[in-house]
């Protein structure tokens, strides 16, 4: 066991120094920073335009509708649209303004047929209505329609307002009913931040698993192809070697995560990003700590389960070129776990998830999802944990056997049968 420490520190120290590690970490840090700045940048760019998008509004035959639209848009805080009035549908003037860029496009209305709201036509140089503009115009048009249709009816202003108000679904869960009663609305808010944690942990699990897993496999293969393995296995037991490597790589992964978290935190701490964070209504103080703890436990255990497999596969392959193909099944497995979790985010209590949370390779993410967003009891979490630990013990044992055999086999990648034969021959 006292040999484990040199292996861990050697693996760690040498990986940290490699160019590939430094480069990927820096690139990811830059991407993260850019990602966090996106909302702010959007604000910055749209703010520069000052008055926002200029749109022509043809009063023509429907002056009332046009007026109510303009009034509605003006009332909206931070409206990004300003209207330019055109009394009549003067084709020539509109086309001219479109050409020289005074307006981006123009709205005009068709004839009203009975009580029907007249057809709305948007003309622009571009062939389709862009998404942000549509989302800004839609409520204005809805509002105008409401007023147009209800005009002259017996409905009061309040009734109209009540009709147009959107329906709010407040989510409450029975096991959280107590909390819900104490402070209405608080349960849904906790869920949001917890969803974010679950989501973040799943992505983290997937990413670090892939990256460090591949690093472990590549490391083992390169030791084998550089033949230093022959010296290593005469110095340390393969089990110590394998776990030293896995732990060393785990520390690498951890370091990377810490760097990323620090980058995110530093970016979020910038004053101008605070505002955009507040918009998401994320309150870290409402975070459920038990989710984080359970998530981290499963994250670490899940990592070990996959890492042993990656090490075993790495030991079978003699050349780095063959590694990608050999690693494929494990990659598929972790992809499956990732997608099961991702597609079930909205339905955390489905039967699929219940089954998956007891299958070792997918359980780390699925049980977390069930606990964080669904209704899994601690007992179920414990059971899943036990199965996972049992699986780790079994696969470590198997991987150590494969590792022991694999590192002595050179040449082409052995089939399962050849591997078993070699194990027998080596008496492992």
């Amino acid at each position, binding site marked *: 066991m006292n040999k484990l420490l040199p292996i861990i520190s050697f693996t760690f120290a040498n990986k940290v120094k490699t160019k590939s590690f430094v480069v990927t970490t820096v690139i990811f840090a830059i991407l993260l920073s850019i990602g966090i700045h996106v909302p702010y940048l959007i604000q910055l760019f749209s703010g520069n335009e000052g008055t926002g998008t200029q749109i022509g509004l043809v009063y023509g035959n429907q002056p009332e509708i046009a007026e109510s639209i303009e009034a509605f848009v003006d009332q909206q805080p931070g409206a990004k649209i300003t209207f330019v009035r055109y009394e009549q549908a003067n084709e020539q003037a509109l086309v001219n303004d479109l050409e020289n860029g005074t307006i981006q496009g123009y709205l005009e209305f068709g004839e009203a047929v009975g009580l029907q709201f007249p057809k709305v036509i948007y003309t622009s140089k571009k062939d389709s209505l862009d998404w942000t503009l549509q989302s800004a115009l839609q409520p204005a048009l809805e509002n105008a329609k409401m007023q147009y249709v209800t005009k002259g009816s017996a409905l009061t202003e309040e009734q109209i307002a009540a009709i147009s108000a959107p329906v709010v679904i407040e989510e409450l869960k029975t096991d959280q009913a107590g909390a819900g009663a104490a402070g209405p609305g608080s349960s849904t808010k906790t869920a949001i931040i917890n969803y974010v944690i679950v989501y973040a942990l799943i992505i983290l699990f997937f990413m670090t698993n892939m990256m460090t897993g591949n690093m472990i496999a590549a490391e083992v293969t390169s*030791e084998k192809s*550089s033949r230093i393995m022959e010296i290593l296995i005469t110095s340390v*037991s393969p089990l110590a070697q394998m776990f030293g490597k896995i732990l060393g790589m785990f520390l690498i992964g951890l370091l990377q995560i810490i760097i990323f978290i620090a980058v995110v935190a530093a970016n979020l701490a910038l004053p101008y990003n605070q505002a955009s964070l507040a918009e998401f209504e994320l309150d870290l103080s409402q975070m459920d700590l038990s989710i984080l703890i359970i998530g981290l436990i499963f994250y670490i255990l899940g990592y070990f389960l996959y890492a042993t497999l990656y090490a075993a596969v790495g030991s079978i392959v003699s050349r780095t070129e063959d590694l990608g193909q050999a690693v494929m099944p494990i990659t598929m497995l972790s992809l499956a776990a990732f997608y099961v979790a991702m597609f079930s985010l909205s339905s955390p209590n489905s039967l699929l998830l219940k089954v998956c949370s007891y299958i070792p390779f997918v359980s780390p993410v699925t049980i977390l999802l069930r606990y964080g967003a669904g209704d899994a009891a601690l007992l179920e979490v414990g059971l899943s944990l036990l199965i996972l630990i049992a699986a780790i013990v079994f696969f470590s044992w198997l991987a150590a056997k494969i590792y022991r055999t694999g590192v*002595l086999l050179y040449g082409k990648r052995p089939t399962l049968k050849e591997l078993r034969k070699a194990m027998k021959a*080596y008496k492992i």
Partner: protein
Amino acid sequence: MVKPLVLEQVTKQFGDKTAVNGISLQVEEGEIYGLLGGNGAGKTTTMRMVLGLIYPDDGRILYHGQGYSSELQQKMGYLPEERGLYPKIKVSDQIIYLARLKGMSAQEADKSLRYWLERFEVPDYYNKKIEELSKGNQQKMGFIAAVVHKPKILILDEAFSGLDPVNVELLKATVKELRDEGTSILFSTHRMEHVEELCSNITILQRSNTVLQGNIQDIKKRYPREEVLLHTTGEVTGLEAIPGVERIDRRERGYSIRISEVSAAQHILRRAMEDSVVEHFEIKEPTLNQIFIKEVGESHE
């Protein structure tokens, strides 16, 4: 006194193929034991079994009278035939790491490494990466990696292959030095002249079987002396008439004569003394190379 390394009837099979068939040998303290054989004769498998990498199917291996245990890893050094080190890592980093894996402390390892670099007159390699070194120098580093932790039992698989003559001499001297310090060395090679110079006892393997074993001098005595080297100032005539002479080759300064029986040598000398002045006369003992080819070549048929 218990011998550091004893192999008793060790057998290893891979599937239907027998890789090593009942090999027995003993290595004394401070002895270099030669393990010879052609390609695929079972040398590497034997060495791997000694190292505890694979277990023998039959027979046993004793280290100082004990069976294999993981503590032995610290006492053994191994220079594999296809040696390698981490190409992108500094010499000091990886050799100290390997020494620590063998149970040395970092300071001891550093001291030992510096001693060896000094010994090979390349102290400036301490901070170099392996990939920056020439192939021969990489091999020297590999050798250092095998001996840095002062092993009691050293296993050298083709230690001198790919080295220039200067470095071969340097390494040979080092191996002898280790032997004189009491290290037991199991040494495999194709190069007979190295064996003749370094080893006192040898085993020749051929297709997983032991074909020849024992002290080199004893082995040589078993083989008839068949060649006479004769240097004279003038010409010697009538040599071919001597009974037992098979062939005469004219050389720059004399003759190389193949004989079928040793007694013919005396007649040759007498004849030469009658005709001319003898400068040099030698009944050559068979080289190990000749013995090897004779043994291994014959059983090839």
